């Protein structure tokens, strides 16, 4: 039996079995919005992830799964040059965005991050009001907005937070619950209208109800945004994503661990009919 069938959320499609509203995965022939080819990421001399190649399809949710330490966050950060902020981090290979090399000399990482936003594992609202948290991005990026109030409201609505906070926009973002804070962080990210949203384990600090809200939100957002999500929760990957990349850590001759991409395919296929034995072991819980 197809193990993912029972976990499909209404309105979310995986492996082409869902409703067309959120869309089946594009055929692999479609031009990906981003593409990694032969990407290795180093921390100093240590090669944390080796030779990764995979596409990121437009307006689809791509999940990255794999054991702890296999380099999921590392690869995710390489997609919007957040690695630049880590001293000693270095990327080789090519990450392209609409065909343009993100690591070319003349590319401004600030501009990259304006188009490719990120939501972090731990909710990290600014110590400012809810309103200012959402308005910060549009302000610093100099977005032309006719009404900041409308923009803030729309972002909070899109992040399914508006009803809970509409009466207390002036209170501190830190006064919200963990799940609300995470949705505030998502609202803050979509307020700048990025094209792609990267999420690093956005639900790891949340309870099942808050997690379900954020998963629904992701499905909703995938109508307009391309989403890449790192998750430890395989059910989550199966539920929300269209594509899944499975990473693992390999030990080389020098006893060094390097992250490797083992398998990338449509989520339905990866979970029902994995091509690689290691993927199968991992998703069936036989990972040692």
């Amino acid at each position: 039996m197809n193990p993912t069938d029972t976990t499909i959320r209404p309105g979310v499609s995986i492996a082409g079995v869902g409703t067309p509203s959120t869309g089946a995965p594009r055929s692999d022939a479609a031009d990906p919005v981003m593409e990694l080819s032969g990407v290795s990421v180093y921390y100093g001399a240590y090669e944390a992830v080796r030779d990764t190649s995979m596409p990121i399809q437009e307006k689809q949710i791509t999940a990255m799964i794999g054991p702890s330490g296999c380099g999921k966050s590392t690869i995710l950060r390489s997609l919007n040059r957040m690695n630049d902020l880590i001293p000693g981090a270095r990327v080789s290979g090519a990450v392209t965005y609409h065909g343009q090399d993100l690591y070319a000399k003349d590319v401004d990482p600030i501009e990259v991050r304006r188009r490719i936003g990120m939501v972090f594992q731990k909710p990290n609202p600014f110590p400012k009001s809810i309103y200012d948290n959402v308005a910060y991005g549009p302000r610093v990026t100099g977005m032309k907005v006719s009404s900041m109030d409308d923009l803030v409201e729309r972002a909070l609505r899109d992040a399914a937070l508006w009803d809970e906070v509409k009466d207390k926009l002036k209170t501190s973002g830190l006064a919200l619950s963990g799940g609300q804070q995470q949705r505030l962080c998502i609202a803050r990210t979509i307020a700048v209208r990025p094209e792609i949203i990267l999420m690093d384990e956005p639900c790891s600090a949340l309870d099942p109800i808050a997690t379900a809200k954020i998963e629904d939100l992701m499905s909703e957002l995938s109508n307009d945004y391309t989403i890449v999500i790192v998750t430890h929760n395989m059910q989550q990957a199966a539920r929300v994503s269209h594509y899944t990349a499975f990473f693992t850590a390999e030990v080389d001759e020098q006893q060094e661990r390097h992250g490797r991409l083992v398998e990338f395919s449509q989520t339905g296929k990866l979970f029902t009919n994995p091509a690689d034995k290691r993927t199968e072991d991992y998703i069936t819980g036989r990972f040692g």
Partner: protein
Amino acid sequence: MSTPTITTETRPDSSASGDALTQRRSRPGEVAFRLAMQACLLIAFGVLAALLTWVLVKGWNRLDSRLWTEMPTGLASRLDGAGVQSALVGTLWIISLVALICLPIGILSAIYLEEYADNTRWYNRLLELNIQNLAGVPSIIFGILGLGIIARALGLGFTVITAAIVLSLLVLPVVIIATREAIRAVPQSIRHASYALGATKWQTVSRQVLPSAVPGIATGSILALSRAIGEAAPLIVLGAVTFITFNPDGLDSGYTALPIQIYTFITRSQSEYTELAAGAIVLLLAIVLAMNSIAIFVRNRFEKRW
């Protein structure tokens, strides 16, 4: 069913072993440490209280408006109508200038070192090491340096600006170190959140890091200024030793300052001088107290919780 049985078996009979919850055991280590801490506190506080009482009692007769409306005098016979106005104004001049000179330089240096400098580079680390060391240099050395370079070589002479520059240099390391601590206490996740939204480095620093660091910066700055205000040693070699019966009226004016004035009064044997000195000490303490309350106000106003 088995769990309760196991519990009663493995736990000693509490009433029999004298281990009952209600019976507080004495823990000699805890008690001794507590007493030691209280004793230290008492010593520190006792000394301070004794000093305060002494100056208050000694200076009681002089704690009136004469202190700031009258000029000091070198003649014991005229002492009844004397105050420390020129020293007070000198101190206010100097401390304002020190704030204007050393706070911008110190805070900007700290921002550079903390947010911009690549501390894997040898010159940045050398810089850091030097700042740490500068904080430990005796103030008289700064005075001599100021005399040689600023007063003589640069030709600024024994003036208010010379004193302000030297005191600024003296407390600059304190401002830098305190500001760096405050900046470092701002969580990295806040910076990352800002960058991930497409903010530039300066936007991140000026809109997120600095506002969050303001309480720490304010506290450190006031501590530094409080130290500058009480310094006498460097000023002694910078020409602020005599009685001055005029207020400074510009950067190139001669001056005296409260700590110097207190010092000169106390070296006189007449008890009237001691009284006036005690009054001046109370005045100096009041200024320091006022500055500290500004710091507390700023801290409470900008306090951030994560």
